[in-house]
């Protein structure tokens, strides 16, 4: 069972959280402008890497905030978590 550092509440047991899949999937502003393939890409296609992965989690049994997690999908190591709408610590460092 993972220990996930909620950006607000600190490290809590995984069972307090629910996963929300890959982070950074933005809803198209004009869905009608997309053809079926592009819409399906937004809807269904996800990265699923073996390695570092940015994903969304909600602290469902805690503060009920959604946030971002950078997790290694093979080792489950968690490198960073940061609130929704903010830049990841990594990207801050790289000046993104």
């Amino acid at each position: 069972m993972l220990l996930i550092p909620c950006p607000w509440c600190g490290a809590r047991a995984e069972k307090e959280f629910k996963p929300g899949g890959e982070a950074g999937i933005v809803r198209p502003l004009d869905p009608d402008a997309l053809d079926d393939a592009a819409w399906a890409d937004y809807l269904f296609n996800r990265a699923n890497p073996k390695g570092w992965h940015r994903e969304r989690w909600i602290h469902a049994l805690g503060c009920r905030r959604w946030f971002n997690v950078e997790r290694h999908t093979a080792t489950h190591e968690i490198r960073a978590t940061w609130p929704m709408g903010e830049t990841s610590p990594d990207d801050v460092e790289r000046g993104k």
Partner: protein
Amino acid sequence: MTDRSFAQSPLAALHIDGRVADASANPGVRLQERRFPDLLNLRIAVADHAIRQAVGQALGGVLPHQANTTSEAGGVVVCWLGPDEWLIIAPHGSDSLAYQLDAAIGGQHAALTDISDARAVIRLSGRHAREVLEKGCDLDLHAKIFAIGDCAQSGLAQAAVLLRRLADPAPDETTWEIYVERSFGTYLWMWLEDAALEYELAVEISD
């Protein structure tokens, strides 16, 4: 105004007060229902410092901004629930508080919601109170980590709860309040009773 005698507390069906006499002589754990506190859920946008300040003043102090802590003034306790969410716990009949808070909000964007009937509140205390909680809760409840005045939302047994630590009643005892959705109240009380059996249990008259 509606009469309190019409009102039923969330654990009324358990007839807790009728069982007080069964208490063990030297209980390691005491259980009690805290009935009818006034509970207000408050939401103010993270960046909205002006409303936060106004509401804090109306509460006679400040809104706790540190995660999982509480503030207390004049018998009213405010628990941090999230970066934009608090629970205000006031004694029964604090009707004027809601008006004061509404006035402080003054029609701006915030949400003050009465949830006084939405929670069962169970008070747990005694030498083994912490161990009972540890049977069903993942939080680190060590005295240095979960200090008096701290609060946290988490799971207890199979229910979602808000846990709040009160002042120690004796040097080797702790006291906790557990806020759980009303519909889970009976389940959680039964669970706590079962978990506490090992340490000898006393049911106390409802507050």
